């Protein structure tokens, strides 16, 4: 391994047409064709703007809430409208604003921050955005058109507890809108997570060891892994609730062996990490802003990174603190109480690290700094009330009261929105022709900070005086009148502050590629390099956490093209793939440019979910096929063939193709399989949990269907595994057609295996709507079906490419990914057989 150069390896001036060619290759489509763009900056601009739009829309809903609650016995909104308004406020804020906003910040800034030209799967990122934008706009539209014309908005709260949200108690389509509506959000979030994980771990600038990576990149990496493990729980719960609503499968119905608490466990297993998913990237932003504003490096970088990883892990062990009043035994509650208190420690570590950093330099009082200081105050207060509610006896009073409304807004608005405003004031000059106005920013800060505290501080009092959450009005004389009126006044001040920001943003922000306002703060990290559509002109070697401070000539050298990859040696969009820990260059990845297939995939995906909600099943199916076709067209154009080794500058030659575990798409597949695995684990939890709730529904050894079908399924799985092995062996010998046949027969065997198992249960007379047990068995078949479907489609696709010579012994990436997916499906299928056939026999009552 040759050592990386410490001086720029290329000669200047560069050849005259090199830059022009780079600009042409990276050019953004003009006019309305910009919707086909895949540059992370363009997608990032759309993404940030859309997320902020949803913030404003959900904020308007909040103003309606506060106007209704300003006085007792409010008559502004009926109970039906109010219940829809607060449900949409929470749902839009959590799903359409908070997670997408930080994801958008990642899409926009990570490649530049890491020294990459773009994210590793540009179309995937664009797809994630369009699915979210289209789906979100239609979903939000439901509240206006829905409640005015059809009463179709969901009204079950953002957390949608059954039985209230089952077919009997919520017969209108609002609940279906929610359940299917967040389907595309879930897909969008996971697509984003794949991008971010592979981008952060594999496309950093050479020399950017993990210990030199910007803290924002660390937080986005942890954020993405948390999405991978947390979202599947809510994906499963929404699937189960929709099955109960549409087909009567009684997962949550206590009269048939289901349990309402199953939903709560699954939802909060997602819901608690969700709030840290929202907070961590914001904390990462603060860790970038403070050092620049103080002109000193971050104190305690390693402690901060350790704290962030700790939060990522711990946050998965806290979810029951949302269920302290459900009657769960005290011993369990004690464990979750301790864990919930413990998670305050890593947050505290970061706060003191920021204080120490501020003490080590001189803080410039800019608008961004003010928002950071506001964040410190508001988030600390919220964290302290968080410790209070982690104590079970106190939570038994505070839970589901306005005390919690206060707490959650202090930590979420304080912990995410304040840093977001700071980020706008800080990073706008890097991406826009003008910076924002410092003066307007300070006014906005004052109004927002004061308005926020006036709005939310009194809610602690109202809550302790007995005001529950989610009430459309309240009677006079209980001591709630005063706090509510004050809260409404504060909310209006807060809204004014946000309006000041919006006016400033509209007047000043002019997104650009190439003539941004520049490094006005004299910051140290790479996103401040002069950039264009191709990100930075060349890719530097990084030897420090603040490369621009360590090497004052770096910006000029990069701009002159004197570092790596000043042009496009393969004539396509490219970025350097590096090793995960030390960032040694490994190969040159070619990236796709603009196209239609991902846009149509997004449109059809959103349409599929929305039409299913409206029960237009055939039309939805057609759109599903449209999405699938788009995906296949999209995938067909990936995996360009090997272009040999190319010189990326200064004599560094890199291969252009990698296969096996080194390939970036192998990593992406592993992330997808982690999602599938997390989904499966959530399912196993649901199965075992329902058994603890209603063991009498479990059949026991003698009442099980005869094992023939299960054994047949097992045998077919083994046969499929043999075909998988055959495919890999044949491919290694470049026997492509034979490998294609092995792939085809293998995936068919997999599908038959799962079909045999499902048939076995059907023949035994088991029917899903009858009991929680039956429903959860058929849910297993559904999950197997999903994964088998993916394997079959991929298998046919790869077989076709094998036959056409587009997959070979050397150009193996697609076959490798198929093998991973297929092996996973075999494993999950085998475990499913063991669980659904083995477990009842194990518990053995007769």
């Amino acid at each position, binding site marked *: 391994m040759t050592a990386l150069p410490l001086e720029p390896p290329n000669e200047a001036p560069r050849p005259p047409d090199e830059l022009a060619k780079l600009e042409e290759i990276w050019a953004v489509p003009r006019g309305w064709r910009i919707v086909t763009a895949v540059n992370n900056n363009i997608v990032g601009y759309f993404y940030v703007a859309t997320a902020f739009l949803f913030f404003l829309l959900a904020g308007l809903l909040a103003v309606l809430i506060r106007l209704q609650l300003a006085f007792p016995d409010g008559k502004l909104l009926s109970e039906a409208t109010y219940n829809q308004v607060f449900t949409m406020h929470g749902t839009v804020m959590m799903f359409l604003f908070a997670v997408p906003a930080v994801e958008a910040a990642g899409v926009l800034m990570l490649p530049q921050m890491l020294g990459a030209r773009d994210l590793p799967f540009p179309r995937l990122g664009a797809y994630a955005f369009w699915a979210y934008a289209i789906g979100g706009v239609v979903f939000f539209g439901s509240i206006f058109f829905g409640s005015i014309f059809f009463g179709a908005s969901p009204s079950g709260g953002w957390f949608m*507890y059954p039985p209230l949200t089952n077919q009997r108690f919520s017969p209108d389509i609002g609940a279906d809108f929610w359940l299917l509506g967040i389907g595309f959000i879930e897909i969008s979030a996971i697509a984003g997570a794949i991008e971010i994980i592979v981008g952060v771990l594999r496309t950093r600038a050479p020399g950017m060891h993990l210990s030199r990576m910007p803290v924002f990149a660390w937080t986005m990496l942890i954020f993405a892994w948390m999405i991978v493990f947390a979202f599947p729980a809510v994906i499963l719960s929404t699937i189960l609730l929709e099955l109960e609503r549409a087909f009567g499968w009684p997962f949550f119905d206590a009269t048939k062996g289901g349990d309402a608490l199953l939903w709560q466990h699954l939802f909060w297993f997602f819901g608690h990490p969700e709030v840290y998913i929202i907070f961590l990237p914001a904390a990462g932003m603060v860790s970038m802003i403070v050092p620049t504003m103080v002109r000193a490096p971050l104190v*305690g970088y390693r*402690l901060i990174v350790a704290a962030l990883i700790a939060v990522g892990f711990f946050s998965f062990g806290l979810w029951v603190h949302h269920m302290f009043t459900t009657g769960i035994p005290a011993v369990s509650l004690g464990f979750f109480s*301790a864990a919930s208190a413990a998670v305050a420690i890593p947050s*505290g570590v970061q706060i003191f690290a920021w204080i120490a950093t*501020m003490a080590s330099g001189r803080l410039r009082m800019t608008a961004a700094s003010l928002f950071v200081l506001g964040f410190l105050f508001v988030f600390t207060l919220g964290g302290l009330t968080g*410790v209070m509610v982690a104590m079970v006896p106190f939570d038994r009073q505070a839970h*589901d009261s306005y005390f919690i409304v206060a707490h959650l807004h202090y930590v979420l608005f304080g912990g995410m929105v304040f840093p977001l405003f700071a980020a706008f004031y800080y990073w706008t000059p890097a991406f826009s022709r003008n910076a924002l106005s410092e003066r307007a920013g300070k006014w906005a800060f004052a109004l927002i900070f004061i308005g926020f505290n006036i709005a939310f501080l009194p809610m602690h009092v109202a809550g302790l005086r007995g005001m*529950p959450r989610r009430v459309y009005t309240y009677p006079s004389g209980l001591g709630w009148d005063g706090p509510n009126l004050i809260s409404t006044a504060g909310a209006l001040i807060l809204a004014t502050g946000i309006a000041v920001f919006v006016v400033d943003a509209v007047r000043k922000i002019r997104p650009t590629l190439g003539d941004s306002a520049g490094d006005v703060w004299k910051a140290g990290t790479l996103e401040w390099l002069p950039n264009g559509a191709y990100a930075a002109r060349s890719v530097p070697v990084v030897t420090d956490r603040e490369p621009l401070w360590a090497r004052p000539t770096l910006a000029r050298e990069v701009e002159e093209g004197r570092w790596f990859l000043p042009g496009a040696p393969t004539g396509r969009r490219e970025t350097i793939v590096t090793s995960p820990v030390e960032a040694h260059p490994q190969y040159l990845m070619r990236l796709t440019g603009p196209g239609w297939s991902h846009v149509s995939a997004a449109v059809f995906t959103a349409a599929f979910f929305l039409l299913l909600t409206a029960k237009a099943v055939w039309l939805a199916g057609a759109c599903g096929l449209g999405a699938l076709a788009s995906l296949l067209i999209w995938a067909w154009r990936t995996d360009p063939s090997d272009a040999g080794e190319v010189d990326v500058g200064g004599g560094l030659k890199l291969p252009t193709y990698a296969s096996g575990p080194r390939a970036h798409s192998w990593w992406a597949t592993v992330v997808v399989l982690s999602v599938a695995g997390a989904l499966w684990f959530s399912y196993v939890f649901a199965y075992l949990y329902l058994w603890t709730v209603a063991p009498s529904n479990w059949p026991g050894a003698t009442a099980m269907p005869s094992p023939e079908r299960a054994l047949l399924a097992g045998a077919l799985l083994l046969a499929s595994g043999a075909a998988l092995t055959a495919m890999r062996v044949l491919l290694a010998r470049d026997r492509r057609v034979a490998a294609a046949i092995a792939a085809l027969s293998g995936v068919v065997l997999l599908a038959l295996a799962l079909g045999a198992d499902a048939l076995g249960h059907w023949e035994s007379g088991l029917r899903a709507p009858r009991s929680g047990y039956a429903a959860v068995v058929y849910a297993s078949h559904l999950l197997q079906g999903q994964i088998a479907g993916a394997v079959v489609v991929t298998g046919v696709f790869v077989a076709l490419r094998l036959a056409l010579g587009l997959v070979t012994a050397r150009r193996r990436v697609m076959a490798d990914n198929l093998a991973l997916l297929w092996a996973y499906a075999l494993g999950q299928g085998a475990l499913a057989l063991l669980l659904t056939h083995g477990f009842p026999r194990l518990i053995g009552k007769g």
Partner: protein
Amino acid sequence: MTEGMTDGMTNLPDAAMMNALAPHGPEATQVATLTQVMTVGGALILLLVCVLTAVAILGPRSWKRALSGRDTVRWGGFAFPIVTLAALLFWSLWTMRGTERAAAAPAALTISVVGEQWWWRLDYRDAQGRRFAEANEIVVPVGVDVDLLLESADVIHSVWLPSLAGKLDMIPGRTNRLRLRADRPGVYRGQCAEYCGGSHARMGFELIALAPDDFAAWRAAAHAPRREPADEDARRGREVFAAAGCGACHTVRGTDAQGRVGPDLTRLGARRHIAAASLPNTHDARARFVARSQEVKPQSLMPPFAFLTETQLSDLAAYLGGLK
């Protein structure tokens, strides 16, 4: 005997009837102390963070230097929180243990409370073990341990009496046991604390703590024979009650009205409020509720009886007011 049940009682001011910081029961008292300590402690910590931040930004150079090392992170971020959180957690777990052990001793009285959209179905046993139903107003003797057995008939609800104890959910398919004790005679207000759709905001209730003799009398009168309506309009009101079919959904013990869809009305006249603590129990409020129930409790199962005339409504209200 049951008239003016709350007359002469120490009347707690309204705001104190429902306030976690004005406790009148053992669990609420312990939590109130915990709350006060945590609030003061939290405020001091917040102040400390503000002061340290101010010093970090504006302080003299030597103080800034002292703050600028990793020790600040270790002391402030690890040592201090670990110590304070451990102490707090220990106190909290100790309090939980105390509540659990106290609740393990048998209660003097057990009442079944079933949450319905959007009212409370109560089921008592009298001294002879006979059951009787009530609704929305829980009457208990003062100073004794009472168990509320919480269940749900439809969706998840939650019983919360901030002045007495923490809340506990009513989950379909489960029975949860809430232990309380009212240390002072008086009226305590509670509210449903789990969003249950529609009129969740109008699902309140009151708990009345009576002196032991008064409670015994109240309980004994549950199965007492019904008195004839006192005057003419109440008698006419009884006819209206029967003609309008109220008995299909409501029960009045000792009459033909045996419906169980809606609240038991046997002793409606003695209650302080109607419609789950949504309206005061006055003649006009009763008439208004019968005529326009959907305005008070939207989406509830009670249809508005708008076809009744003013006189009929007034007579009906008189009859209902006399049910004691």
